[in-house]
């Protein structure tokens, strides 16, 4: 039952391969799995595609991963922030690819990956540059854009508590992308503030059921 509990963040991120698509939770710093990202930097995987709402803040975490040159492409909704100088520099130097995705599409495309949906017609972005070249369809008098799933090889998630089976609860708005990313990746790695005994989480309040979680570490 405790096969999912890892001793260290280094153990938890072992085996992530070069070229992987890595989903990284968090909205700004809320829910950002900082220790796992730091461990990924030490682990050394390169040529990564990172899917995350933002493109790193300051010089730590995701920004540090970018600064090390490990990331080939960023898929995000909002790269440009007051403290996103690492990404900004790489982007302006042509050293990193960027796919900007409306935030709702980012969430829904990962949800589709997790739910077995092949593609979906979406109302967001119709008539805008972010829908250019994409298939559209009129349904019931409204135009929609066809959007495809975003699947991860790995997800790195920050949650609040886990039980030893891997059930997760989050805390306030730090929940954000975690539950969706947990459904969308083959290997789901979670850092939590606390691991409790199985049975100690309220079954009605579990947000991410244990089936989605592969590895848990306390951070």
């Amino acid at each position, binding site marked *: *039952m405790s*096969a999912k509990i890892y001793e260290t963040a280094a153990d938890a991120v072992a085996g992530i391969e070069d070229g992987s698509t890595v989903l990284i939770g968090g909205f700004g710093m809320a829910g950002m799995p900082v220790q796992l990202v730091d461990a990924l930097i030490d682990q050394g995987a390169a040529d990564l595609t990172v899917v995350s709402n933002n493109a790193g803040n300051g010089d730590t975490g995701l920004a540090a991963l970018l600064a090390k040159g490990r990331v080939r492409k960023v898929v995000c909704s909002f790269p440009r922030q007051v403290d996103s100088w690492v990404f900004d520099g790489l982007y302006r130097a042509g050293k990193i690819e960027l796919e900007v995705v409306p935030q709702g599409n980012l969430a829904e495309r990962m*949800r589709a*990956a*997790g*739910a*077995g*949906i092949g593609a979906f017609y979406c109302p967001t972005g119709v008539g805008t540059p972010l829908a250019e070249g994409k298939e559209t369809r009129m349904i019931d008098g409204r135009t929609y854009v066809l959007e495809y799933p975003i699947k991860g090889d790995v997800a790195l998630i920050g949650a609040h508590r886990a*039980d*030893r*089976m891997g*059930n997760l609860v989050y805390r306030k708005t730090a929940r954000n992308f975690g539950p969706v990313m947990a*459904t969308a990746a083959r290997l789901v790695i979670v850092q939590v503030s606390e691991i409790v005994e*199985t*049975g100690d*989480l309220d*079954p*009605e309040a*579990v947000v991410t*059921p*244990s*089936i*989605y979680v592969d590895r848990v570490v306390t951070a």
Partner: protein
Amino acid sequence: MSLDKHQMAALIARDIPHGAYVNLGIGRPTLVADHLPADSGVVLHTENGMLNMGPAAKGDDVDPDLINAGKIPVTELPGTSYFHHADSFAMMRGGHLDVCVLGAFQVSAGGDLANWHTGEPDAIPAVGGAMDLAIGAKSVYVMMTLFAKDGSSKLVPECTYPLTGVGCVDRVYTDLATFLITPSGIEVRETFGITLDELRARVPVPLAG
């Protein structure tokens, strides 16, 4: 000797990997739960919104709000989680369950499954979650008798009953043999009280021994 339904259930239970997430279809497949060892770590899913379902509820434990997909009162185990129907079927359809075990009217050589409708013109069609289960789990095991009451094989070249899913079955556990459905055809893993030649004589599908 051929296997009875409990022996078939025990055989399937033995083949389910430690710690697997499993959905047992209504009817006979639910018997598999009785044969899982206490330390199997297997987590049962029921499509009406629950993971880590426990055994059937008895006496004072019966709670009308806590039922399985067959609408039978069940119990929860430590580590249970509840979720709504869209999340539950996203879990199934997204390929997160390791194994599901389903009954069948027919399975074809190519792994097509027919288990929801006899095709009789006056039958009221009712599918429930069968089609979602068929296409969702990483491995789909069928549990059925090999021959129908009229003696005809339920393993067939092509299903004549309406399909539940196309090419979705991985293994077929029957009273007389266990079949593996592979890209190169059907392989007989083991037989029970019948020889491979006898099987080949009665089952109208090429069988690799």
